[in-house]
């Protein structure tokens, strides 16, 4: 197995003086699902955004495949094959569902067919999708659409930033079934940033705990380990 993403000593944060990431280093293997878990405010989402260059980082290198991508812009990274699903099921609220998909669909139109076979909410007829406005969708549907858009850019690596946050238990269940299906069908590399620790451990090959802007405790694969770490005396 080869590395698809390598991060070396990443420092940075939203504001110039305030570092949230204090030297993060990690490696992601081809085809694996890596979970990043941690407390609120530990910098998980910041790391996701920093990889996509949505917030500037002060120091550090990111390489994707064999290329150094530290200086690329967000849109260039997207063309390279990294895609992010942002927190809270972000979609273009004022546009129809079909328009949302059309925007995301860049290179291979046949991706859409694959996606439509997996994702339940896209399975209504095209006419319906054209009529449906994105802001009338329920929370779960919005997350599904957001995921579909993330995948429609045909990425090699997706970063999923809290795909289940703010959803009802039923919708969370659906979302994870969907994620399993996607892993099986598309076989892409996934970085899953997740609050819900049990879900993350269940879904991912291995998990890393983020704490105070540092990744610690690589390879958490059992729930008991984590409970020990978090609640021990």
């Amino acid at each position, binding site marked *: 197995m080869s590395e698809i993403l390598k991060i070396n000593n990443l420092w940075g944060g939203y504001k110039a003086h305030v570092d949230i990431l204090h030297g993060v280093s990690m490696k992601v293997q081809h085809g694996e699902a890596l979970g990043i878990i941690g407390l609120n405010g530990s910098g998980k989402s910041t790391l996701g955004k920093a990889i996509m260059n*949505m917030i500037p980082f002060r120091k550090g290198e990111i390489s994707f495949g064999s290329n150094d991508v530290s200086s690329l*812009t967000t*849109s260039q990274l997207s063309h390279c094959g990294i895609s992010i699903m*942002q927190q809270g099921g972000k979609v273009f*609220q*004022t546009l129809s569902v079909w328009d949302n998909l059309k925007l995301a669909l860049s290179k291979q139109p046949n991706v859409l067919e694959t996606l439509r076979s997996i994702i339940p909410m896209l399975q209504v007829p095209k006419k319906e999708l054209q009529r449906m406005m994105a802001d009338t969708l329920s929370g779960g549907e919005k997350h599904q659409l957001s995921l579909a858009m993330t995948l429609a850019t045909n990425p090699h690596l997706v970063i999923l930033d809290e795909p289940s946050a703010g959803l009802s238990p039923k919708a969370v269940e659906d979302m994870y079934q969907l994620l399993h299906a996607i892993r099986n069908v598309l076989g892409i590399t996934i970085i899953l940033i997740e609050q819900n620790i049990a879900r993350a451990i269940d879904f991912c090959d291995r998990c890393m705990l983020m704490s105070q802007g540092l990744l610690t405790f690589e390879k958490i694969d059992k729930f008991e380990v984590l409970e020990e770490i978090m609640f021990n005396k």
Partner: protein
Amino acid sequence: MIGQFVINGLITGILYSILAIGFALVYNTTRVFHIAAAGIYVFAAYMFWLFASRFGLPVVPASIIAIVLAGLLSLITELCVYRPLKNRNASLNVSMIASIGLMIIIVNLMVMFFGNETKVINSSIVQPLSFGNIIITFPQLLQAVIGVIALIAFVFVLQSTGWGLKLRALSADESLFETLGYDTYRTRVAVFLASGALIAIASCLTVYDVGLDPNMGMNVLINAIVAMIIGGSGRFNTCILGGISLGVLQSLTVYQFASNWQNAVTFVVLLLFLFLRPQGIAGYKQRTV
């Protein structure tokens, strides 16, 4: 008699709509309060006058040149001011102040080169059309026809082309737009070109009827901004609704009171909207969850 005022109001409203869209193009996509649009409006008017009256070109090519030049000027404002400021992470208020500075520069350059006095485009006198007791002058007819064509064309582009889709997407969510692999800066170039062109269309149509002077820009722009707000900001089609409502309202004010209270009524309506219904007539409330 009231019919005449409504018609006048509708035609003014169309012009407001075009200008409001020109402003909203920039405002919705970049969030910059683009006051320099007033300068571009004045610039387009002077270019039109320069080529039509001074160089004696026919009206059509003169206006096309004016539209192209205005689009370019608009692009220059983006490349020389807004983009560098954005790269420096300047706040939107700072960009607005810079925009005011730009407006001052452009307007005064025009005055410096072309003088301060009111000018007219010498158009051939054509017999006004009359329907019953409603009279429509030739420039008004031109404004109505070309204005409606421009609006329809814009709405078509917005709703049915890939470019329009990108535009709507950019104004809905910039960060999502970027993560999907689109280059915001490249789209903004198109946005500014289109904005300049629309502002110039509104400018040329107005100037053809009533002439031009260097101080008109700010006043018209503020009306357009009011139109955008009462229509419902954040979208584009609502500008048309707002523009036409505002035009008719102003015209009826003239009918009921006198033309000099027009501005006061406009702003009282604006304030009422801001306090009671900030999302505008079309009522799309932007959620901040």
